[in-house]
Each structure stands twice: as structure tokens, then as C-alpha cells.
């Protein structure tokens, strides 16, 4: 971490700021986040489709956070899995299952909310256990295992619910639409999830075990860790966050459709956000705060694209390029730092 020594006896303000950030372990992705935010403001000022700056509009600013909630929650789970050098492609389907399951089971009745939520979390835990077991015990590559589980979930979902009936009760929609003061409840939930993720990863023994497993499973095993359990637990956590995202989505949409997860691209985008946030695909590195920044980058891009009225296909091209460049910048930089 102290690879770059101060250039002179009197470090410049920039150098000191950098040192300060580094000492506090602020992921470098926040640099990208700030740059993109500034670029967004400039573009809005010069090319905006309306005269108003989005930066001055509190509702739009809050909405940037709200746009991050769905992806953010599941991305925290994906971070756990990826820190453990695994990956989870089944989250998008699990989100669909949760969304459809919630509206079907609740059927608009407020009395059924609690046990429905409970059932869905159990489903999430089971899916996580299956993922974890396939990967750790049967030694199936995580990409294929979770892809397969995802396909199975999709199949069972579409075969079980031939019509996508039901809806969640209005009271349940408080999750998505309620506010405490100026702060939407959903944003609060996102921050709590991120905070909990940070606490587990950085302050609990389980977290350090997970980093060890992700860093080198062999070494972790030799040092006496039950690596299978650690990684399976990460998958369970990931599936649980996917269920939470599904609940948020359905509470926002009132009723779940089987394509909400896949159309939302939650599988690939959560992976992209996590990688942009500095978690290595090879595991053992990264954390949830970086992931949060990665998710925020996506939301700011969304808002900016709307503000300057970019064509949908151009959006795709830019999004693809930004994913590559952001990750490229990051990996390039960390390589340079290592010497």
C-alpha cells in the first residue's frame, strides 16, 4: 500500500490527499466515480435537453440512489461470492422467482406478507446451498453450475406459474415508495446492506476466512479452514441478497413478471459493477464499498444518458466501452503500482 513514497520532504496537497485516502482504504474506483459525476454535470450543462441542471434537482439526485438499490443489494452478495473466487449467474433468475413468488403468495393480502417473505428467504437459502454444494462438493465450475441452476429456476418458474397472477399489498410497497424524512426507505436498506456486508467482510472472522479462501483455496485448506463451508456460505449470502433485490423489485412493480430479473440484466451487471468496484474475478480482493461505487456509476450513467438524450443503441455502446475502460484503468493502475 505504501509503494509510492512521497516525492519530496514536503508532500504536495494532492499527495497528502492521496495518502489520506489510501490510509483509509478508499477504493480507487471512487476516483472514477467522481470523474464520471463531474463529466455528467458538464455534459448536462452543455448538451442537456432541458435548461435545468440535474445536480440542482434534489428529486433527481435522490433518484440516482433509488436507481442503485436493486442492483446494489444483489451486487453486495455478488461481491461476497467473487471475493471467494466464485461467481453467481443464477441471481437474475432468483430475482424473477422471488418477484413472481411474492406477488403470487401475497395475493394482495397484507396478512400474508411476513410468511411469504420468510418462505422466499428459505428458497434463497436453498438455492444458495445448491449453488455452493455443486461448486464446492461436486467441483463444478461456478459459471456453469450457477448457469445451470439459473436455467432450472427459469424452467420451473415458467412451468409452475402458467399465469402470473397476484400482486403485493399496498402496505408492502412502502419498501419501495416510502420515505423517512427526505430519505427513501429503500436507499436506507441499501446502505444497511452495504454496511452489513462491510462489517461481515472486514470485521468478522468469517470475512477474513472468505478472503483467504478466495486468495488461495489450497493455502486456506492447508491452514485448517473448512473452505467448502466458507464458500457455500458466500453463495447463501449472495442468494439471500438476490431475494432481497427481488422483494424490492416486486414492491416497486406491484406484481412480478418472470422476466424482471433477466431483463434487468442483474446477473451480468452485478458482476460488472463488482469488478469495476475493484473486486478481482480471481478472488481474494475487493470489498462492498467499491461495489457500491460501481453501482452508482451505472446509475449516474443512466441519469446522464437521459439528461442529454442519448439514443438507446449508443447507450449500449457507451456502457460497454465504459465497463471495459473502467476495469482496464483499474487493473492497469494496480499493476503499475505493484511495480
Amino acid at each position, binding site marked *: 500500500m505504501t509503494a509510492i513514497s512521497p516525492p519530496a520532504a514536503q508532500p504536495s496537497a494532492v499527495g497528502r490527499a492521496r495518502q489520506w485516502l489510501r490510509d483509509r482504504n478508499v477504493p480507487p474506483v471512487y476516483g472514477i466515480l467522481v470523474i464520471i459525476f463531474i463529466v455528467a454535470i458538464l455534459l448536462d450543462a452543455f448538451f442537456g435537453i432541458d435548461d435545468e441542471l440535474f445536480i440542482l434537482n434534489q428529486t433527481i439526485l435522490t433518484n440516482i440512489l433509488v436507481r442503485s438499490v436493486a442492483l446494489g443489494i444483489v451486487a453486495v452478495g455478488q461481491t461476497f461470492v467473487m471475493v471467494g473466487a466464485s461467481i453467481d449467474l443464477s441471481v437474475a433468475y432468483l430475482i424473477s422467482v422471488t418477484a413472481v413468488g411474492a406477488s403470487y403468495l401475497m395475493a394482495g393480502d397484507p396478512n400474508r406478507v411476513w410468511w411469504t417473505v420468510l418462505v422466499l428467504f428459505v428458497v434463497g437459502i436453498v438455492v444458495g446451498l445448491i449453488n455452493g454444494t455443486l461448486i464446492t462438493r461436486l467441483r463444478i465450475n461456478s459459471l456453469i453450475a450457477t448457469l445451470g441452476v439459473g436455467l432450472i429456476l427459469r424452467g420451473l418458474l415458467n412451468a409452475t406459474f402458467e399465469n402470473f397472477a397476484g400482486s403485493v399489498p399496498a402496505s408492502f410497497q412502502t419498501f419501495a415508495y416510502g420515505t423517512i424524512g427526505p430519505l427513501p426507505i429503500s436507499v436506507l436498506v441499501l446502505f444497511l446492506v452495504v454496511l452489513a456486508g462491510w462489517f461481515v467482510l472486514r470485521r468478522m472472522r468469517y470475512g477474513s476466512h472468505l478472503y483467504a479462501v478466495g486468495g488461495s483455496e489450497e493455502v486456506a485448506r492447508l491452514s485448517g479452514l473448512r473452505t467448502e463451508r466458507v464458500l457455500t456460505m458466500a453463495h447463501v449470502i449472495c442468494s439471500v441478497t438476490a431475494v432481497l433485490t427481488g422483494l424490492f423489485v416486486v414492491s416497486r412493480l406491484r406484481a412480478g413478471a418472470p422476466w424482471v430479473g433477466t431483463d434487468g440484466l442483474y446477473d451480468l451487471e452485478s458482476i460488472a459493477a463488482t469488478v469495476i468496484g475493484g473486486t478481482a*474475478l480471481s478472488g481474494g480482493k475487493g470489498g462492498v464499498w467499491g461495489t457500491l461505487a460501481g453501482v452508482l456509476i451505472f446509475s449516474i450513467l443512466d441519469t446522464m444518458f437521459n439528461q442529454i438524450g442519448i439514443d438507446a443503441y449508443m447507450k449500449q455502446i457507451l456502457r460497454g466501452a465504459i465497463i471495459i475502460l473502467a476495469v482496464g484503468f483499474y487493473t492497469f493502475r494496480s499493476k503499475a503500482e505493484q511495480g
Partner: protein
Amino acid sequence: MARITAGTATTDSFGLRAWQAVRAINPVYFIALVLLVWVGFRNPAFYQPDNFLTFLQRAAPLMILTAGQVFVLVSGGFDLSVGSVVTSTVIIGAILANNDPGATWWVILALLAGGLLIGLINGAVTTYLKVPSLIATLGMLLMARGVGLYWSGGAPRGYLPDNFRMWGRGGIEGLFGLRDFPYAVIVLVVFGVGYWLLLHKLNYGRQLLALGDNPRAARLSGVNVNLMRISAFVLCSMTAVIGGILLGGRGGVSIETGTGLEMQTIAAAVLGGTMLLGGRGSIPAAMAGALALELLFTLLNLLGLPKPLRDAVQGLIIIAAVAYTAYSTRRNR
């Protein structure tokens, strides 16, 4: 590698040796065979040469695409941009050719050049920027599709001329007394044999496999690792263009042509025993994996299984096949 060493210490009875010989065969061939027999059992007409060739014509694109994907997989990467490249090939091909038969040849060349460029970008980003290939090609997935749609304004423009479509749709009439011998099958055979030679018989393939198995060792033994990786991506992207030409030929212009193909090719390759993250893979087995997948789709259709369940069965079989491969490799160690 150290595959058939387990039994040497025990008695070499004939039955045991025969069993081991069978064991040494990649199980994907049995799966494909069982499915083949099963499909024929449900639909005897399937074995009529005409019908069977029609089936091969349909399976050809996925088989060729899978063979291309194998090169990237054995080198230790992924290529998620395959499906998007296929879609863009069809859309851009239609814009460029615009129903002019005279344009077909240069359009095909231009498309291949495009594939080359995409492969180079994928490879360069992966090797020089050190972006994991999963992310690099995910970005390319968005970009390639975006470029195609942006160029066309979102809906296909222009038609593919008949002599472009002939590769995926047409055939040589009356060859071997058949109604039609599909060009796609000829393309399939040419690419199948070519890729088999390239990966299994030439030095290039040996180096690529060594690189996927152990990049450090490969580098130390003088393999130009970056160049090899880039070449694998280029090969895969250009194969995707070929696949796009066949699929566009078969179905005509559509923005859905390539949807989901990236995962299907990876699943097919894995079904054929290709190891993710590199080092092991076989072109014939991977192509048999793709064939098995297509047979599976046909069979599930014949059985009248609803489409949603087909997804689930596909998922189960992929998991089971990979679990089996993982299990048998561990046991043989």
C-alpha cells in the same frame, strides 16, 4: 495426461481392459448417441437422409461456433461476445449487401474483417489492459450489438441476397441422389476438420493448450503468450462471423438471431469435456456436445415437453455432465 493409470496395478483381465477403453472415451459421444437413437425412436423419419441432413444443417452453426469458442476456452478465457457478433453480422450484412447479389463476396470479406477487428480488440483488452476476459467480452457483447443496432437504427434494413443466404439455406441439388445436400454441412465438415487439425495436430494447438494449462510454464518455454491469446480471440470472433452468415442465411434478417448463443456455446463446449479456465479441450468432443444440445432440443420438442421445462432439463444435463467430468478427472488423479 495421467488418465489411464488407475488400473495398471490390478489384474489386467479382458473385461477390465475393455471397460477402461470404454471409460477413456469421452462420455459426450455416448450422450449424443443415446439422444440420436432416442430421437429416431420417437420419429423414425428422422433417419431419412434428407431429414437428417436438414437437421445437420440446423445444428451446423452452433457446432461451428462451439468449435471457435473452444479455442478461447482452452487458452483460459471466455468469449461472451459471440451472440452479439452473430446478430451484428446479420444486421450489418443486410445493410451492406442490400439485396445486391454482386455485393455478396465483398460483404462477406468485410464482415470477416469486422470479426478480425473485434477479436483483436477482445484479445488486446484482455492481454494488454489485463481486463478479465469475462468482463472484456461482456463489454464487447454490449458494444457489438449496440453498433449493429445503431447503424441500422434499431430495425433491420435491407435484405440478404440469395447467394449470401445460400450458405445457410441452400444446398447442392441432387448430390448423392439426395434432394439437397446443404452447403452448411459442407462448411461444417471443412471447419470441423480444419479446427481439429489446428488444435490437435499442429504446434499452434499444442502451445495453446499448454498456455491454458500453465501460463507461466508456457511463457518460460518460449511461447508468446499474448500473441497466442489474441489469436484465440480472433479465431473465435471470425468463427462467430461464419456462424452469423450461416444463421442469417438460414433464417433471414432479424435482431434476435444471436440471442443467448454465447452461453449455449460455452455449455456445449463444457458438455464436450472442455475445461473452463483452460488447459483441456477437444474439438470433436465439443462439437459432439453442440450436436447433443441440438438433439436434446429436438427430442424435448418431440416429447411435447413445454418450452420452460426444456430450459430446466438443459440446465440439469449441463450440471450433471460437468459434475461427471469433474468427478472422473478427480478420480483419475
